[in-house]
């Protein structure tokens, strides 16, 4: 798919999500289980992406303290939990990755 098509559809999806309830609130009533389920969607999808990227950075399972992605990911999880700050989490994880790779001589 062309990058411009992805961007335009992605933009419409984003805009549609932001508009959703502002536009619909007077028109429909959302069932309670749907609203509750909505909370788990990002948690489940993103966790399913994150975990394999940390434990299997090169496609095969690598559960070891010599796995820099796994260690740096744990650092990032700690920082995210303590600070709730997106940018700080990314910076801490990147610095941790670079330092750990240097320490392991990679």
């Amino acid at each position, binding site marked *: 798919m062309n990058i411009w098509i992805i961007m335009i559809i992605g933009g419409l999806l984003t805009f549609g999500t*932001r508009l959703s309830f502002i536009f619909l*609130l007077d028109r429909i009533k959302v069932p309670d289980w749907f609203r509750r389920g909505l909370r788990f969607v990002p948690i*489940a999808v993103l*966790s399913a992406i994150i975990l*394999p990227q940390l*434990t299997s950075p090169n496609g095969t399972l690598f559960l070891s303290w010599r796995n820099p992605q796994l260690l740096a990911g744990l650092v990032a999880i700690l920082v995210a939990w303590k600070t709730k700050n997106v940018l700080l989490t990314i910076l801490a*994880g990147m610095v941790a990755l670079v330092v750990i790779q240097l320490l392991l001589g990679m």
Partner: protein
Amino acid sequence: MIAKTRKQEFWSGVRDESPILLGVIPFGLLYGALAISVHLSTLASQAMSSIIFAGASQLIVAQLVGAGTSGLVILMVVFVVNLRHALYSASVAPHMRHLGAGWKLLLSYLLTDEAYAVTITHYNREGDSPDRHWYFLGAGLTLWSAWQASTAVGIFVGAQIPASWPLGFVLPLTFIALVVPTLKDRVGVAAALVAGLVGLLATNFPYKTGLLVAALIGIVTGLLIEGRQK
């Protein structure tokens, strides 16, 4: 309390949004640099900041396009990452009932994490002024301008970053930053762990369907545990 004028509301929004820019500008720089490093054109990199106008989604699109992921999977991930905006939308909607379609469309476009955060605080604190949407507009436009400008600088700087830097790791880090703070209780943690483990076991499913299976099992786990607690 005497209701503020439109101009006062607008500039209050600009003023309250400004300190948040300290956290937003580096994020814009990072996105711009990343987009260039995966060989998106300058035009596409900059245009994405006004077409999608959502930091995490833009990082995802840039990374996944760079990794050659299929368009359908990219769009699914973007949609899911943006679902939280539906919650913001539901939260500001009662304050926007009296507005015309034009205002609703414009303010929806400007409904980012950061504009939502200051606007909903203002809405909940101040009484019912009929011109409060001007505050939302001031906050939203301030953020929008800073986002466009920091993207442009990031694109310029990004061209100088060596290719050996592990920028690809930014994606799982972005996801960690988004997910971890939402894990407020055991139910959330359980949903995350189950989805993560199933995702790990199902990595070899065809067409990335493992992700879908893992997500569904995670969501159902969350709903079931929550249901049992009541």
